[in-house]
């Protein structure tokens, strides 16, 4: 914490904003709220973080809490789920909510709540893994590009442009579909497609930070370019990258479930939210609840990620205010 180049982004960003933006207008109202609230003396890191987040509006905290709750519930699925996710009860097909089946049963008499809880382990878990992988790969490529010679940098960025020129859903569809439709290949396809925005952002941010005095100082003291990149530049570009990764988590969630819905990801009877939605389509007109529950779950997860992501971006990414 002591070194100036690895300063805590939560506190640095609002402080930098005070001078940059004149008061008045919508976005500035939020910025000044952030500035005044976080300007107070707080004791711990968590209190500071909480105040800063709360200042961006009630949604940020709410989104994070809902997301956290979903993760905890899904992680505890083996303990709290009332049934087995693949246990079929043919006598109790398409039932409404009851004490035995809190969200009713699907077309094969399986408990929807149980399947949602277990499904979250896949849908949320794989989305998180994909997002972490794309953030890391993209950041490393972007930093490498910023530290390389002009020619290599240009080549890498042209390649990023080309990958970004493909419509993401179609590229994921083609890669996952041609390899062999299963969950691993879908995750792989999402990673192959998803790293490029991170590379571009990491490079732009690193190019800016590279001009600062402390980087020059580090180079003068004889630090290797690897050390300069990861010890001095990376901590300073982490904020915007984290903000972007939160926004991309929403995309990962939606496309993972969406392509599973199309039959390209997890395969039945795996309890995955998109797969559940697809299976429910057949019984849609008889029993809408079968379809409403997994859809609403995906919606809630994406919504909380997106709302929290907006708030986090306001705090973490000074360029997007």
């Amino acid at each position, binding site marked *: 914490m002591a070194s100036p180049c690895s300063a805590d982004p939560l506190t640095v960003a609002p402080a930098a904003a005070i001078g940059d933006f004149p008061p008045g207008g919508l976005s500035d109202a939020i910025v000044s709220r952030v500035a005044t609230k976080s300007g107070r003396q707080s004791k711990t890191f968590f209190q500071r973080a909480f105040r800063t987040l709360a200042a961006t509006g009630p949604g940020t905290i709410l989104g994070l809490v809902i997301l956290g709750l979903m993760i905890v519930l899904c992680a505890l699925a083996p303990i709290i789920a009332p049934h087995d996710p693949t246990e079929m009860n043919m006598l109790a097909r398409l039932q409404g909510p009851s004490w035995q089946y809190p969200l009713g049963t699907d077309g094969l008499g399986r408990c929807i709540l149980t399947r949602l809880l277990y499904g979250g382990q896949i849908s949320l878990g794989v989305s998180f893994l994909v997002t972490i992988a794309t953030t890391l790969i993209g950041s490393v490529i972007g930093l490498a590009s910023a530290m390389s010679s002009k020619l290599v940098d240009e080549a890498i960025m042209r390649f990023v442009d080309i990958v970004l*020129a493909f*419509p993401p859903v179609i590229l994921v569809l*083609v890669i996952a579909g041609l390899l062999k439709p299963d969950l691993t290949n879908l995750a792989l396809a999402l990673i192959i497609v998803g790293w490029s925005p991170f590379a571009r952002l990491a490079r732009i941010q690193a190019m800016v930070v590279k001009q600062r005095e402390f980087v020059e100082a580090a180079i003068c003291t004889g630090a290797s370019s690897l050390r300069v990149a990861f010890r001095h530049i990376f901590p300073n570009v982490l904020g915007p990258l984290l903000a972007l990764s939160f926004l991309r988590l929403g995309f990962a969630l939606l496309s993972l479930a969406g392509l599973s819905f199309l039959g390209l990801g997890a395969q039945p009877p795996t309890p995955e939210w998109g797969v559940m939605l697809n299976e429910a389509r057949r019984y849609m007109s008889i029993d809408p609840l079968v379809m409403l529950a997994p859809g609403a779950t995906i919606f809630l997860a994406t919504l909380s990620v997106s709302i929290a992501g907006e708030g986090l971006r306001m705090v973490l990414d000074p360029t997007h205010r």
Partner: protein
Amino acid sequence: MLSALTPKLGSILVILFGASIITFLFMFMIPGDPAWTIARGRYGESTITPEMLAEVRAETGLDQPLPIQYARWLANVVTGDLGISFLTKEPVGPYLGKAFLVTLQLTVISLVLSLILALPLGLIAALKPLSWIDTASTTISQFGISVPEYWLGPVLVLIFSVHFGVLPSAEWGDWKHMVLPAVVLGFRPLSYFTRMIRVGLVDVLRENYIRTAHAKGLAQSRVIGYHALRNALIPLITVVGLQFAGLLGGSVIVEVIFAVPGVGRLLYQSVMGRDLPVIQAGVLLVVGAMGVANVLADCVCLIADPTLRCAED
């Protein structure tokens, strides 16, 4: 004005060239021997003989080095020979074109719908920032970004097709078939447009020339509708272009749900059926169309914003 576009056109050509290499390499993504995949696509799995494989290799040039294969493939594509579909045994070009027109139609309709809705939403939100109506419009746009279209689609079908029976749930034909897919597709652009209009207007309303317009006694409606909106809408043009491109390549799921015979569904079917020529041609077409949309948006920007033109001269 043309000089301002030249670098952009150049970079798009480079991107298209790169995209064509990646598209060409799709062939090697299918596990196993590409010649076998092609032979299976043409003659069916059970009848493949080693002679057939050799014939396919010689004919498609699979026995040649990679760069030569690519050059041959690219020459065919550029001259309009997109190959023969494995599934339908017909030339790819004509029916890909037909599918593209459907997607284009759907895209334009949903963009127009969402623009018509976004204008009043963004306008009201910008005029009363941080009020309840602003909060409401922000919330709506949050919903629009997060709602899964593969859920919204069936829900709307449930309401309008199953329950009320006013709109068809699938197929393609007259305007009634376009309503539901266009609405579902339009939700995301609606969110972005509303935000863009609000942010743009809030910024512009702070400018001095707006104060001047007020001070010289102009009516509020004229200040907003003429002076403010004209400048606030310029950033919107870029976003419309981006969303246009995004919808061209992002309507796969909606097209599948509503059985719309567009490029998205065609690509989905081709991927499921390993119909390589259609996949390659379709992906290239979409990437190209997105590039064109991009350039078009830039042209409109140049026309709408004289300061951009001056900067280039």
